[in-house]
């Protein structure tokens, strides 16, 4: 019986055989009651009806259904299959239509998955390239302690920072490109490279930013821009100066007075205008040993808590003031980052976050051995 149930055709044959047996028995009993001719006519007529039913059943059920089943089997076995052409409006037509719709959806999903995998591969490559551009370790610089930490929002962040050393000076920048993703990462990479080139041929942050802006505006047509602060420190004179391109304010903490001073970075973001030479300026900063300069991206001051309040510049200044007297650069960076994390609580990060603490004077051996000193990776868990 299990063998018979494998196909409709076999079922029909089986039923036909049973019917034939029943008919045979009927004919025998009828032959006892009717004439031979009458029995023959009856059997013949009945046989013709049965044959017609069988033919009709085969043409309208068995054969069209077999076509659909063949394609379904091919799909299930991973073989090539094709659309089932059917204009029927009955149950067979519904099954054929359903099969065609399912295979169309499968084809689209398969295409989308392949495209998704391809894009993930490309994003992964771009993310890796970006990680290689940004410094993984904080550099050792004569006369300064620089501790930078960054936490991108996703695989391709818009925040960037770097330290470039020339024979006479060191340049430090922090930048933030509009948006996130591949386009922002490309702009970030371009600017990073351009700064690296122009610090070798310019002796001031102002000139570097004018040159970088001119190149960026030439080649980037879309209204993408990058806010940035570029700071330079002259080894011989100890002079610190900076030029801003529409970036967040700079915080200066003077240990002697225990107070924070906020200075506007000024200028206009890179990429907004073809020539920014009249719109940015270079500002000198006098620091004594132990004093701090804090650079940050807007992801810090725009960080929100569960109530929707912003962390803000005032809280940042308070955190710096609270911890700057008792910590060196690495410790201050860690404590401020922890303050931001505590403020945010369980609220999801909404933007890249970068914090750079620069202290006049070189790190002590104890600070160098601080686990927070070397890596530029933001601490994930402040517990």
């Amino acid at each position, binding site marked *: 019986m299990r063998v018979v149930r494998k196909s409709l055709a076999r079922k029909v044959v089986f039923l036909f055989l049973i019917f034939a047996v029943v008919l045979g028995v009927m004919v025998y009993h009828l032959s006892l009651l009717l004439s031979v001719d009458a029995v023959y006519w009856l059997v013949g007529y009945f046989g013709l009806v049965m044959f017609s039913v069988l033919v009709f059943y085969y043409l309208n059920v068995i054969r069209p259904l077999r076509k659909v089943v063949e394609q379904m089997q091919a799909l299930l076995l991973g073989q090539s299959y094709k659309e089932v052409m059917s204009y029927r409006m009955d149950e067979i037509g519904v099954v054929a239509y359903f099969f065609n719709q399912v295979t169309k959806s499968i084809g689209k999903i398969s295409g989308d998955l392949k495209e998704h995998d391809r894009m993930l591969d490309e994003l992964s490559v771009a993310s890796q390239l970006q990680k290689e551009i940004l410094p993984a370790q904080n550099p050792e610089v004569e006369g300064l302690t620089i501790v930078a930490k960054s936490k991108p929002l996703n695989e391709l962040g818009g925040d960037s920072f770097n330290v470039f050393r020339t024979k006479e000076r060191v340049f430090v920048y922090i930048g933030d490109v509009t948006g996130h993703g591949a386009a922002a990462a490309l702009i970030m990479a371009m600017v990073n490279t351009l700064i690296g080139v122009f610090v070798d041929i310019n002796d001031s942050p102002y000139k570097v930013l004018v040159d970088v802006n001119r190149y960026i505006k030439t080649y980037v047509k879309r209204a993408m821009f990058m806010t940035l602060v570029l700071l330079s420190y002259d080894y011989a004179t100890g002079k610190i100066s900076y030029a801003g391109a529409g970036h*967040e304010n700079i915080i200066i903490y003077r240990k002697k007075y225990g107070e924070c001073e906020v200075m506007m970075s000024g200028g206009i973001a890179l990429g*907004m205008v073809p020539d920014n030479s009249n719109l940015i300026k270079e500002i000198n900063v006098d620091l004594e040993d132990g004093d701090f300069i804090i650079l940050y991206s807007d992801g810090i001051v725009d960080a929100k808590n569960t109530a929707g309040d912003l962390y803000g510049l005032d809280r940042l200044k308070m955190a710096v003031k609270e911890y700057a007297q008792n910590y060196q650069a690495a410790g201050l960076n860690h404590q401020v980052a922890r303050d931001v994390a505590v403020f945010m609580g369980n609220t999801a990060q909404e933007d890249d976050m970068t914090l750079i603490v620069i202290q006049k004077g070189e790190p002590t051996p104890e600070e160098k051995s601080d686990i927070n000193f070397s890596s530029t990776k933001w601490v994930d868990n402040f517990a």
Partner: protein
Amino acid sequence: MKNYLSISRLGIDDERFAAFEFTGSFDSVGFKHNFTLLQAVLEEHDSEYLVFDFGKLTFINSRAVGFLIEAMNFLQESNRKLVLVGADGLVKDVLQTTGVFELIAFYPSLDAFKVSITT
């Protein structure tokens, strides 16, 4: 993320400018949800000035600043000007910090702008 930005036309009978009031938070979410409206605002009004009233805006980020620069460039192609009015507090700080006010005219209020184009 919830959209907290709404944009509405200010009913002002002056053919020299069209004014739109922004309320709430002009960030990436707000920009995305109002993208079609923002495009229509730029394309459908051909008055000389397009005024964005930011008096009721509580937050703005770099995505919105990027849109303002694009809007400014788009309007400049047809000799029209983008004007910002009313921004204060955090919003004004951001616009000032990023240098937007170097490129786009700003007035403390819509009335101050009207006076400036009358005189």
